[in-house]
């Protein structure tokens, strides 16, 4: 019995190829501009001239992220019309027909998982491919990853398998929302703050 579905993401192995992002778009028919799963490129550091040559101290890694189907979803909490719910297995879903397009949830989500579509004046987000998952198949993103850097399952089981890290730079404090997320950090993530790294690809997000 699953109490809280969650994603595992291996930042140490993610190349940033975005097969997950596009697999999601294809499965869910997402028009250009709508990204339920996104890949954040984190980059920072710089170059220093030593002797005659430039020497790098550059950090670079990726964070692939959809909706973390939080244990205490701030999006649901913020919705004035109760359009966002949580299933018994932890999956957070939006009942679009209730959505009034106020975008409070988008504002509330610490992971920028909620995406607003101006053409319909509603929000949407990753639904964990719940129909596939209910049928015993993995979410499209997990099945797509050429590096096998994504996994899914019950949060407790994922923690047993992969550890309990759920935050790497520059993700927000997970305490409040309790994201269904387990991460294997990239070697650079511990150095990223000191290198003043930042998300480098906002134009792609």
């Amino acid at each position, binding site marked *: 019995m699953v109490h809280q579905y969650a994603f595992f993401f291996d930042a140490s192995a993610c190349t940033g190829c975005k097969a997950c992002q596009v697999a999601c778009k*294809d499965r869910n028919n997402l028009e250009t501009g709508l990204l339920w799963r996104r890949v954040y490129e984190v980059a920072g550091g710089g170059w220093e001239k030593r002797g005659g040559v430039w020497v790098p101290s550059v950090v670079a890694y990726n964070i692939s992220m959809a909706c973390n189907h939080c244990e205490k979803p701030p999006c649901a909490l913020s919705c004035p019309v109760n359009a966002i719910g949580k299933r018994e297995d932890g999956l957070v879903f939006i009942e679009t027909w209730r959505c009034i397009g106020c975008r409070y949830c988008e504002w509330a989500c610490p992971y920028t998982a909620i995406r607003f579509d101006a053409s319909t004046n509603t929000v949407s987000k990753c639904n964990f491919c719940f129909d596939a998952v209910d*049928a015993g198949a993995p979410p499209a993103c997990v099945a797509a990853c050429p590096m096998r850097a994504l996994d899914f399952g019950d949060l407790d089981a994922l923690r047993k398998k992969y550890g309990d890290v759920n935050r790497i730079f520059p993700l927000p404090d997970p305490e409040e929302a309790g994201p269904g997320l387990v991460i294997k950090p990239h070697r650079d993530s511990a150095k990223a703050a000191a290198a003043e790294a930042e998300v480098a690809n906002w134009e792609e997000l």
Partner: protein
Amino acid sequence: MSRRGFLRWSASVGTAAAGSGKLLAGLRKRRTPGGPAARLSPSAPGAAGAASRESLSVSAERMVRTGCPSHNCGGRCLLRVYVRDGVITRIEGDDRPGDIVADPQLRACIRGRAYRRRQYHPDRLTRPMKRTGKRGEGKFVPISWDEALDTIASEFRRIKAAHGNQAFYVPYGTGSYSQTNGRQTAERLMSLFGGSLGYYNSYSWACISAATPYVYGTAVTGNQRQDWLNSRYILMWSWNPAEMRDGTNTEFFLRKAREKGARLVCIDPRLTLSAAALADEWIPIRPGTDAAMMTAMAHVMITENLYDAEFVRTHCIGFDSGQMPTGAEGAESYREYVLGTRDGVAKTPAWAEAVTGVPGDTIARIAREYATTKPGVLYQGYGMQRRAYGEQVVRAGCVLAAITGNVGVPGGWASGIALQARDGGPFWLVFPTGANPVKAQIPSFLWTEAVLRGTEMGPDDGLRGAGRLDTNIKCIWAVACNALVNQHANINRTARILEDERLVEFLVVQDNFLTPTGRFADLLLPACTQFETWGVEDGWKYGDEVLLMPKIVDPPGEARSDYRIAADIADRLGLGEAYTQGRDERGWVEAALDRFRKTRFPGLPSLDEFERSNAGVYSVPVTKPEVAFADFRRDPEKHPLPTPSGKIEIFSKRLLDMNRPDEIPAVPKYIREWESPFGPEAAKYPLSVIGHHYLARVHSTLENVDWLNEAFPQRAFINPVDAEARKIRSGDPVRVFNDRGTTVLPCRVTPRIMPGVVAIPQGAWWTPDADGVDRRGSVNVLTSERWTPLAFGNAQHTIMVQVEKAEKD
């Protein structure tokens, strides 16, 4: 909590959750059409689950497992394509159980996953068209197939009578490898029609395919990839499989090797996606100087006695003056070159630091690591050989592999082009093109020379099979080929050549879209995609599987397969029967399977069985990876290499005898490129440009796919040091230019590229404005048509430019 504190954590969650059950119930039990996944392989022949035809009757949606459309992408992957009412509704990946290293799932990359947006792109060509304006203007009107085919037949006859068969040319182009789509269909007709000018070599591998055999006598120098799990050290030199793939699962195997404890180091001007995720360390290097770093590594190995002297003595020639080949006893040995015995320049790490921009101590450390952490792999990517003296870097890498004794051992790697199968690698194309009655062949990169001055071309221009050509190229039939304009060097020059109708008199282009090459067509013919006809493909380069590609949907409008178009032309020329032999596309797929079955895949099922199983792929598990040169390693006398000496030729007497030591030295050397930061040209054009492969495209294929452009927009990547000096900020449009052309595109300022280098992803479609300035970031307006000395290959990454901030439109 503050900003959302006004909303209480309370009933809203519970209420909605209670309501969710009903909402979702109807979606819970959805049948998966197409049958369960199973493996089709020698160990489990024909065990591929329920047939698809039954499920057709109970569900309007059907699922077909198929090989991903076969472009020149570096992968061959499995797709599950869902179809409803004749339309592809979604695409999923390989779901075969048991994703193991010996026989992993063939997971498609972003390009294959986005394919629906290419398949149903509004710009698909659907009708034949003929040119109305001047050639190159891109003005066309639709015509009937009858008019198109009649025109082609009469022009072919006219040109044959006027100029002979050497005037016909089916150019290099890699848009389709599915057998029944692609240039091979045109080549077959040309063979029947009396022949056409042939070509050899490619734009991908010109130097590495030409130079590797000078060292090893063969291109089959690679161990099977699973053997990387036996390596302790992997140098990824100019190698970026995460972006160009280089074989489905290559990046996955590297991950596995690293998990087993191998140390991976990536040497590249860019901190590539591969460097970030696959390697333990990234070493930036100035483009075009890799051979200098390799030479300095040899210097460290020699002076610190870290090389495998015994292996060099027993298996190599030309390392030092004691083992020079007969007739070259007095020539400069490799050791003499490295130590500077004759030229007075010791190729030390300090010497290489000034050339490469890599700190000398780093070079020395990598030399020690590679020489002492055995077995090890020095994998040569292809980018660094598409350069001015690309032959040198290929041979220099092979020599490092040889003198460290990493040849012929599990976990080692001989370097070079590294085809793996004993028969020379995958087949790529098995569609029979027939014997070409015209024996003359030009290097593929020199086709513009053959248009301008074919009759003057001889061996000095790489002409093979004839002393001279009888005619210049007069007719070009470009099939699945945007290489003619967009991917060839110096687009502005190519455009001028093609615009002159006195040179190429008739130009037919067949494609899915109106490409930059298509703009120059006299006749533009609509080809179907690989989802719209039958095809088959085998594994890319490494080739351990065969993927079936059934026809899944109908083509739009009047589009036809390349095979059908060629067959229709053949009919007009009275060659219909000879061309088709009574087969349709499926019939040729059957013939292709037969070829596979008789060679590398003896257990391959019949086409009917293959189709019925809906398995999509037949794979051969690699449980005991082959190791190249294992026999030679064991007993070099009994199993000599196919080189003149039978040994690894660090020194090549064949190259010595060419008597061009400055450009084709007998031992691999670093040679300063003809455009470089060290030449006078750098005063005007101080920045190097590299045109790397991009995940948004396969070369120029998939260029117009919105989901890919969204994920990886076209832009120039530039280091903050160079950007600040030019007051350029991330997102600004920049003007990149040299004497050959100008392109304007947005830029990304990033520390992930070394100072002095700008990266413009290759393949963007040339989009000239009224002033001839490209507005899309097509790197080939900057590249040069000059070819490499030995391979006659493209040197399209050897470019110097200036960059400045452009005005926003």
